[in-house]
């Protein structure tokens, strides 16, 4: 399965639930990707971006224990790193200005994650 285009890609994860981070870690591994870093808090995540380079794409949980990850999204956008939101809010749960970003609906399948990451990295 290592002949996939995602092979060796470094993915940045912002997620406050450890179980879900573990799930993502397993899935990424299965897709041949590498977990660049995982952060549970926005400030920590923003600080982690330069340290974790290179980053090919990022998956952001919107709701981080009461805080949102929009600031992280802005920082990623500023660095030119493609990202998708992972959310349980549904597609209309995105704030104005972010509605055009790709969304991964939780819970997501391996296939859906692969499709989303491929979409991000192709761009």
């Amino acid at each position, binding site marked *: 399965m290592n002949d996939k285009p995602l092979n060796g890609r470094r993915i940045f994860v912002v997620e406050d*639930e450890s*179980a*879900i981070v*573990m*799930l993502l870690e*397993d899935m990424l591994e299965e897709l041949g990707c590498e977990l660049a870093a995982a952060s549970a808090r926005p400030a920590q995540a923003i600080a982690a971006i330069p340290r974790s380079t290179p980053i090919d794409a990022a998956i952001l949980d919107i*709701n981080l224990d009461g805080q949102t990850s929009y600031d992280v999204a802005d920082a990623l956008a500023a660095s030119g790193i493609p990202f998708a939101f992972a*959310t*349980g*809010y*549904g597609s*209309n*749960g995105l704030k104005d200005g972010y509605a055009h970003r790709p969304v991964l*609906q*939780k*819970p*997501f*399948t*391996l296939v859906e994650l692969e499709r989303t990451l491929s979409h991000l990295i192709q761009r």
Partner: protein
Amino acid sequence: MSESFGLTNQHPGGGNTTGGEMGALVRGYDWARTPLGPIAAWPQCLKTATALVLNSAVPIVMLWGPDGIMIYNDAYSVFAGGRHPRLLGSKVLEGWPEVADFNANVMKVGMAGGTLAYRDQELTLYRTGAAEQVWMNLDYSPVLDESGTPAGVIAIVIETTDRILAERRLNFLFALGEEFRRITDPTEITARATEMLGRQLRVAAVGYAGFDEQETIVTERCWHGGTMQNDAAVDPLNRFGPRIAAALRQGHSLIVDDVESDATLDDAERAAFAAQGVGAALAVPLVRNGRLTAILYADYPTQRRWTRDDEVVARDVAERTRAAVERAAVETAIRDSEERFRALVQASSDVIYQMSADWHELRELAGRNFIADTTHVSRTWLQDYIFPEDQKQVTDAIDEAIRGKSPFELEHRVRRVDGTVGWTLSRAVPLLDRNGEIAQWFGAASDVTARRQTQEHLRLLVDELNHRVKNTLATVQSIVTQVVRGMPHSEDVRGAIESRLGALSRSHDLLTRESWETASLQDIADQALRPFVDGNADQLTITGDEIRFRPKIALALGMAFHELATNAAKYGALSTSAGRIVITWSTADDRLRLQWRERGGPAVVPPEKKGFGSRLIERGLAYDLDGSVRLDYAPAGVTCDIEMPLAAGAPKT
């Protein structure tokens, strides 16, 4: 000696017509029976005076000698009416007994050499038998004999009754108009009108009745010689019988001068008049668009000659009364409506406002401490009340309402009294003028801030709940993945779990969109199956009536569709691009019958052992739906028939 006073043969071709008809009568009269003696013996002054009288076009009567023997001309004969020609040669006091005193004075003054002049002298005469008010300009001068002694009196009599009546009618109508302007109560209007007409016509009673579409009397007042009554006993339409009622309905006036001698009345009608003490009657109906709208009537206890003028005045009064009553009724209705509106405004907790036709001007706004009051016309209301980012939304809704002359309705944000953001549900209706154009807008706006805040709070709660549920599902997914890791078929297990968690999650999303109230069957099926036919929507046909289910049933059906689709994707119609799935349903007798039909897929082989999907569909679904589910692995394609009572899933109303 007829030519002796120069009345004949003096004008060539004049013949016997000289002096008119009266000339002939005078010449043929047997004067010998009178104190004047035969014409031949008349003094020259009498002959001369007689010729003067007969040849005048002005009504003149000469009263000759101490008895005032009357000699008059054609013009006077018209004035004399029924008394002519008996008056000729008679004594004035006997000829006009009803004004004997007046004439006695005339004779006394005239024969003493004096003159008298009266302008518009009112007299009551009985020229036709009935009493008549007449007005005259009267000029009396003595006629002197050869010795210079008054021998008679010449009276120039010009009747001014028509002019006087016309003037009085005008004055009367003017006074009536003034009264109508002053009075605003419909009942008082009819009371005044009947009283004034009664006094004007000098009758015993005048009544007015207005009728509605059902010919029911809606306004009725009757004046009885000084007393006003609301006389329910008098039915102005039917009081004299059906024949007269029918004529009135057709707009014909009833004019009876003398009940006893009126040949148009039958015995029953005469009896009806008599029973009501009516000797002469006048009634004018008002008919509009073929419908009787009012009757004005006047009664007189004995005979009376109604004049053309009486009828004209009565009709005029009737029409003015009806118009005034209608106007007053409208004004009363408007006043009542305004009072009700004021009361409503006072009682309402809503913001009340008035806008100009184009909404450029806010004329008045009572803000109820919710938003600021506007007491003077404001052209800056949009800036004052509406936040800049919301102004377009508001003006768009206004433009649409103006275009359609339809009510404006919008829930929008407003700047509250304290400057903070509030929400209002604002409604305004256009008031149209006579031409159907918008005159202004009346609006009411309620403070829905609390509701909006509650809604917003609820939305946040639902979002948070969703987030938790989804994270929990993802966590379950994670745990399963960790647990099965390294076990045989771990990938199949994980895939199977992921797929079902996904289906559960999507059903959840659908219900969240509908605020967890109901979901339509179409959406439930579509949501569950769409992921399986991604890119080839033709494979799926879903048709059926619009029907909605409560969350529990919606979730159960969603999971069942998912299992059927999973099976179809693995072994059935969705495993080849030629395969098709058709889902149809119908409702009858409060039951839903749904059919799942697969075709075009590979030949179906029944599974050796029923798996999770079969169990969930056949047992779990039937259990949840309180219905029956039949799953058939037919070789041509899987079929599934679901039947359930609608009451089980229909939303509670």
